[in-house]
Structure formats: C-alpha cells, structure tokens
C-alpha cells in the first residue's frame, strides 16, 4: 500500500509569526543581541575575574588609564573597572528580573481579580491602585527604604511595591479588552466553559501586552535601582552596583571621566536594549499599529 503524504502548507503558529515579525525589526534585534551579550557577561563574569578582585582595594594601582591588563582602567581604589562593571551587570539584571517577577505576580493577581470580577471589587482595587499611583514611584520606594533600612532585600521590596500598581493596571486593562471582544461572547454563546474561555481565549491574547510591559518594567527597575543606590539608599559600596559606582566616581570625574562614563554607559545600554526589545515585541504583537 502506498502511503502518500499531502504536501502540507505549513501553518505557522502564533508564536512563530510573532518571532518572524520581531526579526524583521532591526532595532529590536539589535536590542536583543546587546541584551543577550549582557546576560552572558553577567553569567560568565567569573571567567574574567572573581568577586574578590572587584571589591578589594589595590591602592598602588589606582586611577590607571585603560590598558591591556585593565581594559577600562582602574578606579580610585585600584579596582578593575571592567570586572566591576560586569559584576554590576549581574546585580542589576538579577535584581531587576526578580523585582519584575514579584511585582508582576502581585500586580497580576490584583489586576486579574479586578478585571474578571468587575463591579465593586474592581472599583475598590482600582481606587487603591490609583492612590498608590499618585505617589511618585521613586518616593514610594524611598519611603519603604526609609522604614526598613537599606540593603539589597529592602531595595528589592521597595522597588517591587512601587511597580505593582502599574502592572495591576496593565493586566486589568488587557483582561478587560480581551473580555470585551466579540469572540469571547461568541465562545460563551457556543457553550464554552468559563475555565476554557480563560485558558484558550483570554490568557493568550492578554499575554502580549503583559509581556511587553514586563520587559519595559525591567528597564525601569534597573534605572530605579541605580537611582536609589546613587543617593546611598540602595546597594552601598563596595558592592559594584552601577549606581553606586557613579556616586563614587562623581568626585573624581573631572580628571578621570571614565569612572562615570563606564557605569553610565552600562546602565544606558541595558535600559535601551530592553526598551528596544519591549517596543519590538509590541510592534510584532500588533502589526496593524505600524501600517
């Protein structure tokens, strides 16, 4: 018996389509590459040097200009700036990611509850979120740090809390938009069960904006962490966090600008690449907006 195969006209899955559109966006791909490099750098920094060398002072070597041994030079305490920057990447990216996950989880619960149940629950939750949003995020984080003291954990908590309302809003609006679509009503009219509607219709379509927001959120968090560390309310020296590196370098920047240019550029690169990825995702998810 002959088994014949039908020439299948490959139907791309939704995810593949989105990836295809994303790839066409050169800026977004650039952002992705830069960000991936940063992640690799953060993960494999130990190949280049250990943590001790990043924080131990080495005064005889201080303030050296870029050379073979120290590609970015050394700071006023003799520490290799490249290594410090790479460890800084590890700190910023990991804290950024963790913060995002925390605020996403909390925000999603609130937003989903508000969107799905609607009515009084929605009203109450959103009023509370509005009040939180009325406080500038930086200040809210500062207040938490003020109460609980400095340190990485408190910083994480403070930043996460300040981002929750934004997530709650995005999740709620994504869910409401999807729920308002006619195809949900159509699914209900066919007799589809609530749980199936949520799983197959609401979640996949609401995912898009949420992922975009999450990406952009990590960028915002990195900025927030470095800001707080800069004024001494976050991660403090000698930990090589980019913000505190900027604060340390400020006094000597006139004659040794590389002390601030390196960490500043690192922050800018990380944030920008994440923003490019986030924007690229947004365009890839809804190409109608472009044309």
């Amino acid at each position, binding site marked *: 018996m002959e088994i014949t195969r039908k020439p299948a006209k490959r139907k791309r899955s939704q995810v593949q389509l989105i990836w295809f559109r994303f790839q066409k966006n050169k800026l977004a791909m650039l952002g992705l590459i830069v960000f991936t490099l940063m992640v690799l750098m953060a993960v494999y920094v130990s190949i280049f040097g250990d943590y001790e060398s990043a924080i131990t002072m080495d005064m005889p070597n201080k303030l050296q200009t870029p050379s073979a041994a120290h590609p970015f030079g050394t700071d006023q305490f003799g520490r290799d700036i490249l290594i410090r920057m790479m460890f800084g990447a590890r700190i910023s990216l990991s804290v950024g990611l963790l913060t995002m996950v925390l605020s996403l989880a909390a925000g999603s619960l609130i937003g989903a509850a508000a969107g799905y149940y609607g009515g009084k629950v929605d009203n109450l939750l959103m009023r509370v979120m509005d009040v939180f949003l009325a406080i500038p995020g930086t200040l809210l984080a500062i207040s938490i740090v*003020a109460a609980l003291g400095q340190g990485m954990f408190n910083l994480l908590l403070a930043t996460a809390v300040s981002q929750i309302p934004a997530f709650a809003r995005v999740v709620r609006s994504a869910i409401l938009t999807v729920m308002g679509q006619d195809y949900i009503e159509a699914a209900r009219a066919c007799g589809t069960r609530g749980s199936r509607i949520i799983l197959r219709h609401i979640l996949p379509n609401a995912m898009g904006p949420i992922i975009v927001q999450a990406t952009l959120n990590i960028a915002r968090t990195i900025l927030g962490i470095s800001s707080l560390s*800069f004024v001494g309310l976050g991660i403090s020296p000698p930990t090589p966090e980019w913000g505190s590196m900027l604060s340390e370098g400020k006094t000597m920047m006139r004659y040794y600008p590389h002390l601030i240019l390196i960490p500043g550029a690192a922050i800018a690169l*990380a944030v920008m690449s994440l923003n490019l990825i986030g924007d690229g995702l947004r365009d890839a998810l809804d190409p109608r907006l472009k044309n």
Partner: protein
Amino acid sequence: MLRYILKRLLMMIPVILGISFIIFTIMSLTPGDPARLILGEDAPAEDVVKLRMELGLDDPFPTRFARYIANALRGDFGTSYRTRQPVFKEIFSRLPTTFMIAFFGILIAVTIGLPIGIISAVKQYSLIDTVSTIAAMLLTAMPGFFVGMLLILLCALKLGILPATGIATWKHFIMPSLAVASVTMATFIRMTRSTMLEVIRQDYVRTARAKGASKPLIVFRHCLRNALLPIVTVIGMNFAHQLGGTVMIEAVFAIPGLGSHMVTAVRQKDTPVVMASIIFVAVVAGLMNLIVDILYTYIDPRVKTQYTKR
C-alpha cells in the same frame, strides 16, 4: 465649570488621605523608638517614657493616624528629629526650588519634544525620524542624574560656562532643568509622534485633503489640536514622576531642595520629615494634575460644550 473644579478638588481629598495613610503605615514600620531618637541614646528611661506619653506614641494606630491628619490640617507636621525645627517650615521653604526645577524641566521637554515629535510623524521613516527616535531612546535610557553629571562634566568642568552646584543665580537652574528634561523628552517625542500618526490616519484628515488643504495646514489646523489632547493629559501625569526624579538630580547638583532634604532625612531616620515631604510632593503632583485636567476641558470641544452650556 466651577462645579467641575470643586468636584475634582473634593475627589482629591480621599486620594490625599489615602496617600497619607499609606505613607504613615509604611513609616510606622520603622524599627526604633522615636522618643529615644529625639532625646538621644543616653537619656534616662523615665524621660523617654514621659515623652512617649506626651507624644502619644503608645496609642493605637487609628488614633495616631487621626491625630497626624488633624495636626497636619493645622499646618503642624511634627518636629524634625534631627533639627528640632517644625517640619512644615523646612519643607515649605524648599518646595519652590524643587518645583521650579521640575516645572522648567517639563517646559523644556515639551518645547523641544513636541516639534520633533510632529516632524517625526509627518516625515515618518525619514532620516530625522529615525535619528530623533534613537537619540531620544538613548537619552531616556540614561538615568537623569547621569545626564546631569555629563552636563556638569561638559558645561561646568570642561567648558566652564555654567555653574556646577547650588542655586545662587538663574544660571544655576539651567543644567538641573535640562537633566530633568532629558528624562521625559523622549517620552514626549514618542507620544507626540504616535499620537500624530494616529491622528493623521483619521478619516477627517482625508476629508481635509479632499477639500484641497495643503500639508502644513492639515498638520497645524486639523491634526495638532486633536493630537494635543492626550499629550496634555500625559504632561499632567508625568509631573508626579518628574518631582520624584528631581530628588536624584538635586543630589548631583548639590541643590538645597526638597529632594536632597528628604534623602538626608531618610539616612538619619528622621521620620516626620520623610513622611511630610512625600505627602507634600504627592499633593503638589495632584494639584498639577488637576490644573492640567481643567485645561483639558477648555481645549476639547466635546468636553467644553458639556461644561459651558450650562
């Protein structure tokens, strides 16, 4: 119209109360004994206990909160642990500085950002569009205080044309405002661009073209007014964010504003100052938002007719 303003002001009250509540709750989580902080480590125990009773520190939470609000309404925000001065005076004297930096920052951001955004939209995908988009993204990816430092490096240290620290003259406000502007400029450029793009796609623009209108006329008469509406709203909302960011920028330029005062207070566990500062800022931000909203009702005919026909 007046009714609308009153209504909005009234609506602000629960928000302010809510904000105060949240901040008060957070700050009450601070470990340590305020009475001890005021009197010092070596003060005798009875004095501490007496002060605690005086200040009502052992009262239940709702009572303490109510008392705080009642005092605040009279202008009494407590006394700084550190300087023993009334908090209100300290904050109020510094508020104008911070406000002005944030205000000028936004002004600059809008003045530069809006035209660039319009051009980017009208000449979509052109060189100007791509360059300005990338430049804006780069600028916004840098923390405001870093931009401030770069400005100092360039203008003060290398070129010597602007003063680096303090607020003695009007010149001192230029760089801080520019730094604040750099944070939001990108947002305005992108918002303007995307709003204009949306507006350009609208049917009424096609109608205008069908009438024989020229491009500049369409952009300025037909598109701009419509695009401005969401942008104005964003300006108001952004102001709160700006005030928050000014904190860092004050640190860079050694400006004796509200922000640096707050940071010092946090470092020294001066709770009343921190609490009052944040509430103040939130109130100012809320008022700005309200002003912008009122402006909006004058610009948008759909809302205007609703409120002025009476």
